[in-house]
């Protein structure tokens, strides 16, 4: 079996989970193996039908434990993997999975490669690619263990709806958690999540203050259905919260379009957005390194371009 963990909270299935299931289905089809999906926590039952749309042959569902616990979640996944002889176990690269997948790897004594951007099969065994050294190199990684595990960089693997047997197997994860979530605070409900966004509107030191993030860039993002990102310089200046930071010490994003306003394009920033499909950069310095990677580079004052762009989009959107 190919097993995929589906990250959901309160009945909201993450887009990255659907991407991982889609990729699991592609591998399962190539290897003529069934695809199993495991989903845990309160709200889990509510996403079973959605999971079936992506080709699951079996959905292992447990509404326990009620709160996220790294050790209990890993126990649940490891148990299903063992009982069903899983050969490959995939996870979406969400904050939750990156946190507990290593514990599953220790339980299964299986190799885990995080943040992969491509898969391949060699003699029926999984081979993966992963960017390393701030995206300055790409490693091809093979496994020495019988079970191969990976977390998938969000927004990289294509979604594909598929048919599957869709059998539902209920189970439960019991026991005392060693660690567990005692409080969850959602601050940005309704906002587009950075790692899942199709378009990111990002600002750097060139934006010159918090107001521009809150007003113009947010307005632009709203018009485009985009998420707002930032460089570390903007975050360090206190203009926007760290949760918006893109780069080596922030989030790794792979949107379809990354729009960089007043960002120079330092290597640590590129590490976080270098796999974006298209990059649009607006910078007044014609020699800014961001232009080396920009699909469309605009040498201009952002304070003039952004308002014009907002007007133009309003026109287009009617």
């Amino acid at each position, binding site marked *: 079996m190919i097993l995929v963990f589906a990250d959901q909270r309160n009945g909201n299935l993450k887009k990255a989970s659907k991407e991982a299931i889609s990729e699991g289905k592609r591998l399962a089809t190539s290897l003529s193996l069934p695809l199993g999906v495991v989903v845990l926590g309160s709200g889990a039952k509510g996403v079973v039908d959605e999971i079936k749309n992506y080709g699951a042959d079996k959905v292992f569902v447990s509404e326990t434990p009620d709160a*996220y616990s790294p050790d209990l979640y890993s126990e649940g996944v490891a148990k299903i993997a063992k009982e069903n002889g899983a050969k490959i176990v995939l996870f979406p690269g969400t904050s939750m999975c990156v946190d507990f997948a*290593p514990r599953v790897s220790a339980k299964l004594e299986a190799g885990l490669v995080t943040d992969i951007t491509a898969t391949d099969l060699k003699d029926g065994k999984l081979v993966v690619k992963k960017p390393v050294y701030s995206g300055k190199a790409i490693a091809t990684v093979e496994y020495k263990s019988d079970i191969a595990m990976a977390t998938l960089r969000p927004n990289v693997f294509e979604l594909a709806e598929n048919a599957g047997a869709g059998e539902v197997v209920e189970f439960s994860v019991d026991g005392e958690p060693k*660690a567990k979530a005692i409080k969850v605070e959602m601050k940005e409900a309704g906002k587009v*999540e950075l790692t899942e966004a199709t378009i990111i509107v990002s600002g750097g030191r060139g934006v010159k203050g918090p107001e521009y993030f809150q007003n113009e860039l947010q307005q632009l993002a709203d018009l485009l259905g985009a998420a707002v990102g930032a460089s570390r310089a903007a975050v360090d200046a206190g203009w926007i919260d760290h949760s918006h930071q893109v780069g080596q010490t922030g989030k790794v994003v792979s949107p379809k379009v990354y729009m960089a306003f007043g960002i120079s394009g330092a290597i640590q920033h590129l590490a976080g957005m270098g796999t974006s499909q298209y990059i649009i950069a607006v910078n007044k310095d*014609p020699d800014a390194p961001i232009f080396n990677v920009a699909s469309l*580079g605009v040498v201009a004052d952002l304070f003039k371009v952004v308002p014009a762009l907002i007007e133009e989009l309003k026109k287009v959107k009617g």
Partner: protein
Amino acid sequence: MNIMVFIKQVPDTETKIKIADDGKSIVEDGINWIVSPYDEFAIEEAVKTKENLGGEVVVVTMGPKRAEQALRTALAMGCDKAIHLEDAAFEGADAYSTAKALAKVVEKYNPDLMFFGKQGVGNDNTQVGQLVAEMVGVGHIGTCIKLEIDGDTIRGEREIEGGRETIETKLPAIVTAQRGLNEPRYPNLRGIMKAKKKPLEKLTPADLGLSEDEVGLNGAKTVYVSLELPPARQAGKKIEVEPEVAAKEIVEFLKNEAKVL
């Protein structure tokens, strides 16, 4: 409180990466080696915790001879003792075989609280702290940005998509440090002088009761079979026009090229 902090020496993120002749590793000549940036947050939190609650901080690394420099940096920042897992057999380790060796250090010294970085930059596994936690059977708080210690209960905040969650666990426990947890101090001259006299113990696989088959490349579950430069990104069109024209060009691009409008 017995505190242990685990650090990794990594190439400076500014380093130019050159792929070695074997096609699967990097050329080490000319690399400026640093303590992985996240590990600095781990060291700071360990030292701060000791200053508040008393006790001792032991800093641990597994790595070649050069990694001793990373240990000296940590000692200069206020750690009390260092342990260096240094042996040819440790080379070629992946996250799994690294954790296997570090877990033995934990079992040997039984610390109450252990700090890791969230990720060793370069290979960016983001795994070793959680792996050790599972191997030694303790709870962990991952990518922690705020930590509270209340007797033998610890609570840590972490960022999740669109918000934050608080994880609670009991000592002994592992915390992996994320940027935001604190502001790491710079080692001052006095710290650097003192660091020279602090004890540094070397350990081999045998000292940890591990065979050579369990560590380094032999004990690894994953192997890099090749390393390539990423496909060069083609710089596209570059324009220098009036703002209104630029705005139109961007909209055209979003519509016709990226097809997102």
